[in-house]
């Protein structure tokens, strides 16, 4: 190559300087990246605007100072900066993401690429470092991680709870199955007992009556055929024998009714109690047409109940009212309703409230032979009403009449 003359040399040098100046200003002007260079031993050789913004040092403050200034105490202890440089020398470049320290002492998160700079002969001249501030990204990462940690913890807790709940459920299911099995057994036992009771009642109805009939019939036969051989007392005894047999027959009938209340299946339907009461009143009037009885009733007393059983209740209460007013010249019987209960009220013989508790027990009578009856009727009523989920009670005073109440479920 020809040697350049002085003027040519000057132009070349000027052009090179211009190019270098151009590049210097370009690097210098970049604000978002910190682009700096370090000497071999780590002192700051150049410092751009980006570095100023990022690290907080002005160029004239930091030039010539050691780059360890930018690292945390811990990093320095671990020898991180040196190992980064070594990597850069070995591989040409090294990258890192970690904390760096600003001029004011605060830390920020940086993403940095360190490049080893060699001259044309391959000799190490220094290092360049291009850094990006990823503090915000790091912060977001940290927040996300925190949220994730919380979610994981919550999930673990919820999971543990669910395991416990599952165990509880399994125990409950087992208990339920046992209880169910028990109930099936109990149900079978109850059904069997019910059937036994039904067939017992059935055979009682037939087998007890036949001997009773014999007692009554042959006593009468004795009276009729051998009457002349029997004196008045003897005749009285035989009459008592017959009366006792007939009474026993009525008792059997009543007891059967009572037991049947429990074994019968209840059929719930709409029942008009007022209509029932009117029907019963008509029937009672037919049986005793000569009696003067005034019957008043509330209209449309409609309930949900077993019709036949309610008929038994109304018949019972109203027959009692008719029976215990039979000694009055004019009787008054009323079918009514209080807020919660229905009642049959009469102005008849009444009863002593002292004995009110005995009223509804089977065979407990408060009137001896004054008024006929086996004492079963009210016990039957109570059983029917109890089966409907209701209650019975009564109020009265001797000679001043009585009121008999009943309620049904839900009333």
């Amino acid at each position, binding site marked *: 190559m020809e040697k350049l003359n002085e003027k040519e040399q000057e132009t070349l040098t000027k052009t090179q300087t211009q190019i270098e100046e151009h590049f210097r200003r370009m690097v210098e002007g970049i604000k978002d990246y910190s682009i700096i260079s370090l000497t071999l031993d780590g002192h700051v050789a150049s410092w751009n605007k980006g570095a100023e913004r990022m690290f907080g040092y002005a160029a004239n403050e930091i030039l010539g100072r050691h780059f360890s200034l930018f690292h945390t105490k811990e990093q320095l202890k671990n020898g991180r900066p040196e190992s980064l440089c070594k990597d850069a020398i070995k591989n040409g470049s090294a990258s890192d993401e970690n904390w760096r320290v600003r001029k004011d002492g605060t830390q920020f998160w940086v993403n940095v690429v360190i490049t080893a700079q060699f001259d044309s002969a391959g000799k190490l001249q220094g290092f360049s470092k291009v850094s990006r501030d990823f503090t915000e990204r790091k912060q977001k990462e940290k927040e996300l991680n925190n949220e994730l940690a919380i979610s994981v913890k919550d999930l673990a807790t919820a999971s543990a709870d669910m395991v416990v709940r599952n165990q509880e459920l399994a125990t409950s299911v087992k208990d339920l199955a046992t209880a169910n099995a028990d109930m099936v057994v109990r149900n079978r036992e109850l059904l069997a007992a019910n059937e036994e009771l039904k067939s017992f009642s*059935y055979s009682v*109805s*037939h*087998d007890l*009556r*036949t*001997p*009773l*009939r*014999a007692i*009554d*019939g*042959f*006593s*009468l*036969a004795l009276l009729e055929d051998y009457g002349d051989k029997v004196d008045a007392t003897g005749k009285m005894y035989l009459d008592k024998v*017959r009366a006792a*047999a*007939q009474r026993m*027959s009525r008792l059997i009938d009543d007891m059967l009714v009572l037991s049947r209340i429990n074994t019968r299946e209840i059929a719930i339907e709409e029942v008009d109690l007022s209509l029932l009461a009117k029907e019963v009143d008509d029937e009672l009037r037919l049986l005793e047409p000569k009696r003067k009885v005034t019957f008043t009733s509330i209209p449309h007393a409609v309930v949900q109940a077993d019709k036949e059983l309610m008929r038994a209740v109304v018949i019972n209460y109203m027959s009692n009212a008719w029976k215990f007013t039979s000694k009055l010249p004019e009787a008054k019987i009323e079918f009514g309703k209080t807020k919660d209960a229905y009642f049959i009220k009469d102005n008849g013989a009444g009863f002593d409230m002292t004995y009110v508790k005995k009223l509804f027990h089977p065979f407990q009578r408060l009137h001896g032979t004054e008024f006929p009856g086996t004492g079963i009727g009210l016990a039957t009523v109570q059983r029917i009403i109890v089966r409907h989920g209701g209650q019975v009670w009564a109020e009265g005073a001797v000679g001043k009449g009585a009121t008999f109440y009943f309620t049904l479920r839900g009333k």
Partner: protein
Amino acid sequence: MDKVILLVEDNPDDEMLTMRALKKNNIKNEVVVAHDGVEALDYLFGTGAYAGRDMKIMPKVVLLDLKMPKVDGLEVLQKLRANPHTKNLPVVVFTSSNEEQDKIKSYNFGANSYIRKPVDFNDFIEGTRQLGLYWLVLNEPPPFTN
């Protein structure tokens, strides 16, 4: 008289009382007593103990008890209703029982009437009187084809 009453009754007390009641009511018809279902069917079909009897003589009414040993009343009823020779016979079920199921079955199997035997003997006598009046006097029996 060609007006036989067939009384199907296993209880000797009830048999005696029924006979007494019929007598008290001046019912003089011949009463054939069968003491269980087998005897009743033997009489009605002319078999067993009654083999060879004059089958032109059939009861004007059958008083049938229900609860009997061997063959009970309902079975007798079913069998006699199934046989063309006896199916129109008037049958009065005469029993202690007033159970629903007995009534239903009796009528289902073709009883003409269901009467409950009362305990009070006076009622028994009165009941028998009315029975006798109705079935032996008032009621027209079915004609028999022999």
